[in-house]
């Protein structure tokens, strides 16, 4: 069973979780044997941007030593054999240029979304 995880909600509790919970879940189900694709759309397209930096937060005397590094988590997901797609229209709306992005992603347009959905048995929209 091939599943496409579409991730739209972004930066939801990523500081508290120290990752994106759906990128994390994608790692976990891949580890359990899932044949998986991931599509970043909406605000989640900025997970593909280089130079994201959530480091340095302190709360009183508490210092966050392990801030989220979502671009790294995307790269390591791809290294596990998961194809990560990113929606071009959502990138363009946010002024994100190809040179702003990490490598290895598949750029797809809305026109290509229909065949992408057809190529997967299940579509999970997060």
């Amino acid at each position, binding site marked *: *069973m091939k599943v496409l995880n579409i991730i739209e909600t972004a930066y939801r509790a990523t500081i508290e979780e120290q990752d994106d919970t759906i990128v994390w879940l994608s790692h976990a189900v891949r580890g359990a044997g899932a044949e998986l694709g991931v599509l970043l759309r909406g605000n989640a397209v900025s997970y593909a941007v280089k130079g994201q930096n959530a480091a340095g937060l302190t709360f009183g005397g508490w210092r966050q030593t392990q801030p989220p590094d979502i671009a790294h988590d995307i790269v390591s997901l791809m290294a596990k054999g998961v194809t990560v797609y990113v929606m071009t229209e959502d990138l363009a709306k946010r002024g994100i240029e190809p040179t702003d992005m990490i490598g290895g992603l598949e750029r797809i347009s809305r026109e290509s979304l229909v065949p992408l959905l057809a190529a997967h048995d299940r579509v999970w*929209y997060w």
Partner: protein
Amino acid sequence: MAQEKTLVFALMDAPYESANTATALRLIDIAVRRGYAVKVFAYEGAVLLPFSRQQRHPNAIHGRSVEEENHLLTREVIAFLIAAAKQNGGTLDWVNCGLCVDERGAGEAIEGVRRGSPADFWQMAQAADNTLVIGTR
């Protein structure tokens, strides 16, 4: 007809925060009335849906006592859904994401709720007729 179909629901919203919760519980209600095998993977805030320490409260604005207000507790709704599944020859298997439980201190859940992981979600989804993900915003 009992157990004719197996459906999985992945839920993310915490109780009392989103209209998604009521719709999800309505969907589960329909499936258990049909005697389906229903599996729920509660992820993130949704692990608090069956939290056993939820308590009713009165509502002074409504002018009603605790008993009169009969406040909806999601833990009670889930317990009723588990019972309804049994009555109809089906099942309701509710799996709370264990790490999500730990970070929220939500370990006290009603009877019938078990602890699991995304790997359990994948196993459930793989074996099911279909899966509906209801994410959070």
